[in-house]
């Protein structure tokens, strides 16, 4: 069995838990090289997404992803709202009509999500943004044929950690130039929580993708 609506719901819940737990940490990352609101923004948006998606019974992963995405777009704000919102929205569009999502479909969904992020943010790799987590993770999915939870999480974590040594060229951290080096990019950190949560759901629920 691939990823079902239920698994998407669990994914959202787990991500939300991690975001709420790490709200202060994410905000501190953003205080170091941005304007210090990233944890607050993500926590507000995910809390609202939980509330919103609790209102309905969803027929398909796509429907659930859509409400999740639209809530992020509306409630996160800042740079991360449009970016995370667009990513999830593109996934929703990508898996439209499917009751379950298999590995190939998941890979395509991530490809589309990344394309959405790139189009919205006009950022490229190595500019110290969440692109630096999403790009490697898409390559990782493309290079494999089945989901390896541990390896997936590892890849995401490594990518996030690598943003530490980069000099920012997009987003607020870019104003710091060299002074941006030495700090993990906040958007990459929350991207890691999102990806780690997906990985945990797939492993714990015995999803076969």
């Amino acid at each position, binding site marked *: 069995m691939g990823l079902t609506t239920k698994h998407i719901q669990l994914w959202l819940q787990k991500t939300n838990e991690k975001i709420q737990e790490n709200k202060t940490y994410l905000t501190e990352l953003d205080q170091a090289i941005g*304007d210090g609101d990233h944890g607050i923004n993500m926590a507000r948006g995910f809390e609202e997404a939980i509330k919103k998606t609790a209102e309905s019974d969803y027929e398909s992963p796509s429907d659930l992803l859509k409400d999740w995405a639209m809530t992020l777009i509306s409630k996160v704000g*800042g740079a991360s709202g449009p970016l995370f919102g667009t990513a999830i929205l593109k996934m929703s569009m990508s898996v439209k009509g499917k009751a379950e999502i298999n590995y190939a479909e998941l890979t395509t969904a991530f490809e589309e999500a990344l394309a959405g992020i790139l189009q919205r943010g006009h950022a490229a790799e190595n500019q110290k943004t969440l692109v630096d987590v999403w790009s490697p993770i898409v390559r990782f999915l493309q290079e494999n044929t089945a989901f390896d939870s541990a390896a997936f999480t590892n890849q995401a974590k490594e990518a996030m950690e690598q943003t530490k040594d980069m000099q920012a060229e997009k987003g607020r951290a870019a104003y*710091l130039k060299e002074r941006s080096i030495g700090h993990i990019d906040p958007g990459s950190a929350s991207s890691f929580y999102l990806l780690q949560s997906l990985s945990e759901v797939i492993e714990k629920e015995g999803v076969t993708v």
Partner: protein
Amino acid sequence: MKKLINDPNNVVEEMMKGMAAAHHDVLKHVPDTAVLTRVERTAGKVGIVSGGGSGHEPSHAGFVGKGMLDAAVCGPVFTSPGPDQVLEGIKAADSGAGVLLVIKNYSGDVMNFEMAMELAEMETITVDKVIVNDDVAVEDSTYTTGRRGIAGTVFVHKIAGAKAETGAPLAEVKASAEKAIRNVRSMGMALSACTIPAAGKPGFEMAENEMEIGMGIHGEPGIERTLLKTADEVAEELISKILQDGVHKSGDEVAVMINGLGSTPLMELYILNGKVSDILEEKGITVYKTFVGEYMTAIEMAGCSVSLLKLDDELKELLDAPAHTTAFRM
């Protein structure tokens, strides 16, 4: 954190309420939105919408009113509002002649406002945008995020708003706004940090003997962290960096804005202006009008920014045109 608030997560809603209550003759809150809009509409006029994160008061709602903005969208503190709220602002400002968005150049603002434009187009509202990037503290580059929009944005509001009030079509209003953007440059500095209410602690730390030159309006740093300087030295540094950009030259006429970032006393802003006006005179630049006060703040940050707007006959006329807002009156 020492703030006169109730709930850190509710500051923007409560501010909008208190603002609408105070100024019901000028602006009103669009129910269930983050939008404050004009009470007195000029029919058939291009609508001007601005906004972004809150915490910059009186920006932007303080500039809603006759001769300036038709609607301001008030995002969470330092966080651009989402596209749905910007769309609400566009709807509130639209009276059939189209809407111009005045966006400050930050990734978040640009993305959210652009998404809102897409949504508005789906609802067949004509919308165009200008992006303000007046802050010379940041390198101008198309590869990176580029320059930030700071207090010079207020001049763009004034010019765009006055042009719209003449009944000019959207393209002309946009052209005037873009001329203002081409002609305005700013730079700021800070003596202290600020605290986002929901964060509960200052965004950064600065020693008792330090200041930051080139500070942005969200506490993003700019050029350098230096030892405390005198007001005269600060004036020299800000002006010289602005003039280096090459827009303002001997023989030009300019409008000057000395903007306080939140907790800098008016006394200090005027002391700074004394030197700014001397330097400009020395450089052969004529000051047509000077604005001193809090126009675009960073919550309770201590510091200031200086903006210069080069004027021609059109801009002078638009700058002098009546404006009846709560924070800018002509």
